[in-house]
């Protein structure tokens, strides 16, 4: 008994800190924050079709994804990906908040009908700071989630 418990404990001790610290990635569906405009478009053309553009923000309809119906993408002044938002398919495979990241490490806000989990992540030794925000009406499954770089302004931002 002690022989069985000890290796398991050691394994847990090694894995647990990594599991607990699991951070949401700075990308959605292969669309990574900081990716160039051309790279992003190459990926977007693989997974969907362009739908519309407003103030430099583009909406793409996903053609084959079972979970997500749309991706919205915005670029910064260097034409690198500033944010990506994915909207779930209403009749698709549901996506839980936990699939985005460890919700124990997220700031939770809102309440019934309006849940929100927010992760503030510092990656690459602090060179990339970004927010990951998952929102939904339901307690378990999200309606949309977004990754957004901090400290950059949008392509069309026009501070008054």
């Amino acid at each position, binding site marked *: 008994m002690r022989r069985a418990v000890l290796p398991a404990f050691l394994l847990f001790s090694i894995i647990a800190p990594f599991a607990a610290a699991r951070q949401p990635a700075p990308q959605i569906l292969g669309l990574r924050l900081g990716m160039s405009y051309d790279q992003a478009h190459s990926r977007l053309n693989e997974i969907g079709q362009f739908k519309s553009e407003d*103030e430099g923000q583009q909406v793409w309809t996903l053609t084959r994804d079972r979970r997500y119906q749309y991706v919205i993408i915005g670029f910064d002044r260097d034409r690198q990906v500033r944010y990506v938002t994915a909207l779930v398919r209403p009749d698709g495979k549901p996506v839980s908040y936990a699939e985005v990241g460890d919700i124990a490490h997220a700031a939770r806000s809102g309440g019934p009908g309006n849940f929100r989990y*927010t992760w503030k992540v510092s990656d690459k030794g602090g060179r990339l700071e970004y927010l990951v925000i998952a929102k939904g009406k339901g307690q378990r499954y999200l309606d949309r989630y977004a990754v957004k770089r901090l400290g950059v302004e949008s392509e069309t931002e026009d501070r008054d």
Partner: protein
Amino acid sequence: MSNTIAGGAVRVLWLKLHPGIILALAVFFFTTLVFAATPSSSTLNPVNGSSATWAGSGIAGATTDETTCVDGTDCDVYTITLTGSPANYKGLVLAISISHQNKLNDYDLYVHKGDLTGPVIASSTAGIPETGEAVAIDPTVSGTGLYTVHVVDSNVLPGDPYSGVATITTPPADSPAHGTAPTYANYQSPPGLGDSSGEPSIGANFNSGRIMTQAVFDTLQVTFNTNTSPATATWLLKDGPNTDIITLDPILFTDSLTGRTVVAQLFGTTSLSSFTDNDGETYTVSQGGGIASGVDHETVGGGPFRLCTADQLVATPLPCAQLAVRGPLTQYPHAVYYASQDIGDAEMALSQDGGLTYEEAHPMYTLVDCGGLHGHIKVSSSGIVYVPNKSCGSTQGLIVSMDNGLTFAVEPVTGSTPNSSDPSVGIGSKGRVYFGYVAGDGHPHITVSDDQGRSWHNDLDVGVPFSIRNTVFPEVVAGDNDRASFFFLGTPSAGDGTGADTGIPFNGVWHGYIATTYNGGRTWFTVDATPNDAVQLGVICTQGTTCPNGTRNLLDFNDITVDKVGRVFTAYTDGCITAACIAKGNDPAASHTRLDNDGATKATIIRQSTGLGLFKSQDGTRLQP
């Protein structure tokens, strides 16, 4: 045996319940037979003179608009079926009118195509004094079949039942606005105040009679001295404690009825904000905006909470309880809303304590539905929240919340086309929505909805009298349901007057125009409110960072409001203020490009001088300059 037992049980149950059942049946018959229109329906044919009459229920009541009435209690229904095909009605209209005796009673008339869930295609909602309402419907446009006439007790005392008439007849003569057009005077802020005033907001405090305006850093209190005529203006700087620190998107909102003014400056995902109940003498610093609201182009608005009437509480207790949860939490009686664009969507947060704190923001729409940037919040007297949007697919759109900002519907403004200026809405006292917008071709349009944006009618180009071909910054305010004013900057010059001016510089003289309706949007007076003094020469660029220097001086919007007596005020940024610039604007032979413009940002207010205001109850006191 078992049948006997069962029969006995039924009899026992009947004996136990029958007082309640009898009461329910009595109520049923009372409401459906006594309180219904008599007869309840008719059929009309495509023949001039085909007609029907009915008698109203005679019930008394008072309610704000169609969304707050309960049939059989303070409104009733009459249906009309038109036979034949629409083509059969060429040269004919369906004229519907109601009349009553006591001119201090106020009935309103709404006509739906189909049943009560169908679009409101015509309405007549004049206020007292009145003894009737009337509409004319063109069946070649709206079709044949079922029409439902909904008669609402806006404010009706007992003993004055209405009678209704529906007739197939020839159409009334189409006439332009008649009467006297309003006139206006301009008041420029004194030197040193309002010198950097792009995208101004304006509000009127009904309690104090003062005007509050805000642009960039300056919050200004303006008092008009009416002991002299023309009135003189006193401008005072009344900055909030935290709203002159940083300015990204400045916003001011005054709740005219409560007198509270909220000032906000965008700051990250919220705003630096404070509010004042004494026109800027003292402020209370607030939370700023909704928790985790968006990051750009915020707006603040407010008005009554949407709460059930006593009749609605009886009729639909559960939805009413859900609404009540989002009602006021403090003595402050009205709702305050904060909305902003976020990453991929736009969100709104409710404050239930007068703007001191806000809830977690709720999504209004995503970029799949509409563009991220939106116009300013307006709230109807029955608590319906509206946010206009310049681009929702192939049309402009109106975002509507019927539950104090919990959920939202996106209604397309049918007949409109997207443009780069944010549209604006004004809400009449009984809920009529006036949607002012710049059409895709640059012309100033305004269209009307009587069913919370589900359908639209009377879409008109109000720039026709001045041949306006380029327009920016549409701003609308309404007073009575039938009265509204629409302010915009326009120029008759063709070409890309709002672009980045990359080719031959755009040559145009911009003025401020105000169009006003006194008949629910059927006709409009359009007036040049800045005659002989251009607001801008050359392009007014709305293309953000691609704009050349000096062409984004006016930034993104102007504003309009109405005071307690119905007098209209607008706030605008004047980009052409020197004698040389003004002279060029008045010389048709001169050059009118951005190179001739001052690029100034001077706070200026237009004040209505004469004419009818937006409140009929004040018509007896003529406006003085």
